[in-house]
């Protein structure tokens, strides 16, 4: 038990903080504590959580995927246009298409990073611009708005099964899959090994390129899926959707204790990190904090969270993002 507390110290602190925060907000605005409000909160944070889970797997390998928001926008726009022009394609098919499209975009990242050994931050910075630009090209800069979209397309994310929205079900499913991948698959375990010591991972025979291709494809897939969900949920698609959202996703991971230096991170932490941001985003309008304060508060929260997380964690030789193949040639 004490061992458990010791190992899960970060998560426990974070969970306590969130409980405290929810309590405080509840005192100020009791309406926040209603079931309906909570339902709205979890629905609202679903997309963030799904993307953060995928991003965690990427960060664990010492990588980063800055292109997710652009991937989301591009696939969202594509399925919206598809729906506009061919309203009879069933939603489930569109869902599948968005996943495949996202996977293809992620695959490009994966190949550049895994096969050509390019730094993830640079590659995804590049594809971030390219994918966002392509969204503009395909849409001609025009909106696809609710009137252009079919009813079933728009309704799916918020349709309820057993009283819970489809968004939340999908997030739960992603959560279970992510937890399984991390704990019980070779793929997941090897991602951790790669992040811990890339050159050593190569020496024990881990196929790093294949694993990296896999993880970036997965990240793209998730972004693609969220692309459909986002567009359907807000019933509109345009070039700028989810602009800058990748930073929220990374912030959720970081708050959840995923080490940007790679090799460490837990699914529980990511859930808590997403919840934290979700609570703040949802509560500020409700407790009527001046909108001008929101950005400053979010920034402070991120800083406090990393300060709390970082105590006692002295990893030397940190880099912006350590690379996979750098130390491979360093001999000893």
């Amino acid at each position, binding site marked *: 038990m004490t061992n458990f507390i010791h190992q899960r110290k970060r998560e426990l602190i974070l969970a306590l903080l969130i409980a405290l925060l929810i309590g405080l907000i509840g005192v100020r605005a009791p309406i926040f504590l209603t079931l309906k409000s909570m339902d709205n909160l979890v629905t609202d944070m679903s997309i963030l959580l799904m993307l953060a889970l995928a991003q965690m797997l990427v960060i664990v390998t010492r990588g980063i995927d800055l292109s997710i928001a652009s991937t989301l926008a591009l696939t969202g726009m594509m399925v919206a246009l598809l729906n506009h022009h061919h309203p009879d394609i069933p939603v489930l098919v569109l869902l599948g298409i968005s996943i495949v499209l996202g996977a293809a975009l992620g695959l490009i990242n994966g190949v550049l990073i895994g096969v050509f050994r390019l730094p993830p931050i640079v590659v995804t910075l590049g594809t971030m611009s390219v994918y966002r630009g392509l969204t503009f090209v395909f849409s001609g800069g025009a909106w696809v708005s609710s009137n252009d979209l079919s009813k079933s397309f728009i309704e799916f994310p918020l349709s309820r099964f057993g009283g819970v929205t489809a968004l939340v079900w999908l997030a739960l499913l992603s959560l279970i899959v992510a937890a*399984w991948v991390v*704990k*019980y*698959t*070779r793929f997941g*375990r*090897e991602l*951790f*090994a790669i992040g*811990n*010591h890339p*050159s*050593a*991972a*190569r*020496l*024990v*025979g*881990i*196929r790093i390129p294949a694993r990296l291709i896999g993880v970036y494809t997965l990240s793209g897939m998730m972004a693609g899926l969220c692309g459909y969900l986002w567009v359907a949920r807000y019933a509109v698609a345009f070039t700028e959707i989810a602009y800058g959202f990748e930073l929220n996703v990374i912030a959720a991971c970081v708050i959840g204790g995923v080490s940007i230096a790679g*090799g*460490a991170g837990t699914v529980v932490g990511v859930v808590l990190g997403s919840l934290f941001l979700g609570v703040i985003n949802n509560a500020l309008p409700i407790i009527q904090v001046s909108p001008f304060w929101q950005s400053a508060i979010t920034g402070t929260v991120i800083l406090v969270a990393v300060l709390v997380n970082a105590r006692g964690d002295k990893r030397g*030789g940190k880099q912006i993002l350590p690379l996979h193949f*750098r*130390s491979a*040639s*360093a*001999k*000893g």
Partner: protein
Amino acid sequence: MMGNTIVADLLPQSLPDQAAAVRSRSDEPVLELRDISKRFGGVKALTNMQVKAFPGQVVALIGENGAGKSTLVKILTGIHKPDGGQLLLDGQAQRFSSPQAAMKAGITAVHQETVMFDELSVAENIYIGHHPMVGTPARVDWAKMETDAEALFERLEVRMNVRAKVKELSIAQRHFVEIARALSQHARIVIMDEPTAALSQREIQELYRIIDQLKAAGTAVIFISHKFDEIFRVADRYTVLRDGEFVAEGSIADISEQQLIAMMVGRTIAQVFPKEDVPLGDTVLSVNGFSHPTEFDDVSFQLRKGEILGFYGLVGAGRSEVMQAVFGLTKPSRGSIEINGKKVVIKSAEEAIRAGIAYVPEDRQHQGGLMSMSILHNVTLPLLEKMGFWLLGKKRKELSITRDYTHKLELKAAHFGQSISELSGGNQQKVILAKWLATKPSVIILDEPTKGIDIGSKAAVHRFMSELVAQGLSVILVSSELPEVMGMSDRIIVMHQGQVVKEFARSEATSEAIVAAASGVTHD
């Protein structure tokens, strides 16, 4: 071999059929390399190299730094692809397209670099890359992985918590994890690239025992070391290489150390520890009551001008930590330093250098070398302060300093603009030594200065130490090699668990007494 490892056959000795089969034709090499060549850009690492490994025998690969030993290991394990030549397994030609292929073929290695995943558990470190799987859909079988790992350590007779994260282990414990990993893979051929470099005397004995177990089970072992006592202790055969080329091979029983050395360096080396007597001067450095909350306690010693002061102890005794505190890298909780009788406060390495102290760290990859910088920039780095703010037009001066010091150490490199990651382990160490000598210190602390250095260069380092003290420098030599400490030191301080337990004058030092003190045996 993927998912169905059985505890009972983790160690080859419990594979009677295979072992018997192998033993029956032990005059046939299980592994043979023929005419292997490998270049890295312009560097010829190996030219027509050949090696044979026989089941149940240990073959020692002997060669100077940069001779190509590690490169050979990497070819054997599928990490590098040879440019030419043949690799025969049981007489069949093979090509390894990947590390997995080599592993499947039964070849595993304990590499010269540490291959450890800090955030993962001990058990997982052993099975990473070949996790046992169970069920459909297949999932990692944690329970089996942990029991198997426990069984492995039981066989090795090493105590280990297999659930602990590797970052919590000591250096020696990590080494056993690496060995356990090699054993976990049913290897028929186990390669060990300088496995003893970081081990203490007692742990080395453990390793010998494990190697004997492997031999008994019919495993072929390829053993790389620069220490001849070890080679003569464990090896059955030897293969010597020089500058990437095959020189000779044969049975260890038929050869002497001197002959091996001669083949290896292409000449004879007169004396390995040429300590010259130098008259001792006044005390230059005096450390009084140094303490640290966790690493060491109440350490005091004096160093005189022209003296070589040896520090001996088992790995983890805290010698490095003391030296790093003297050098201003960590803050002692108590204690003071006097230089030339004057009290000084040293709060950073910069101040230590200014006070005339140099520290050559033991971990050359992380603490010593700037791996992707050039030889030139590595050597002149600590001198920058003296060069002033502007560097314009000082390249010639930098070059001449670099040339001077690397020349003395017999550095083998193509040019000074080469980044040191391209050098062999031993040559990297020489660059780092050159860097510190160039600061012209009055006290130089050498932490395992000859770790991983070949015998010829080792002699050069020792000769150089003698020269240094002859010029009036003082040297602190931290070493885990008993012959080196005894051969080179005027005085020997022995540490045990963070404390100075005994001090020996050169005349009264015997290896038995020193080892006993280092192991914490008190018998006064």
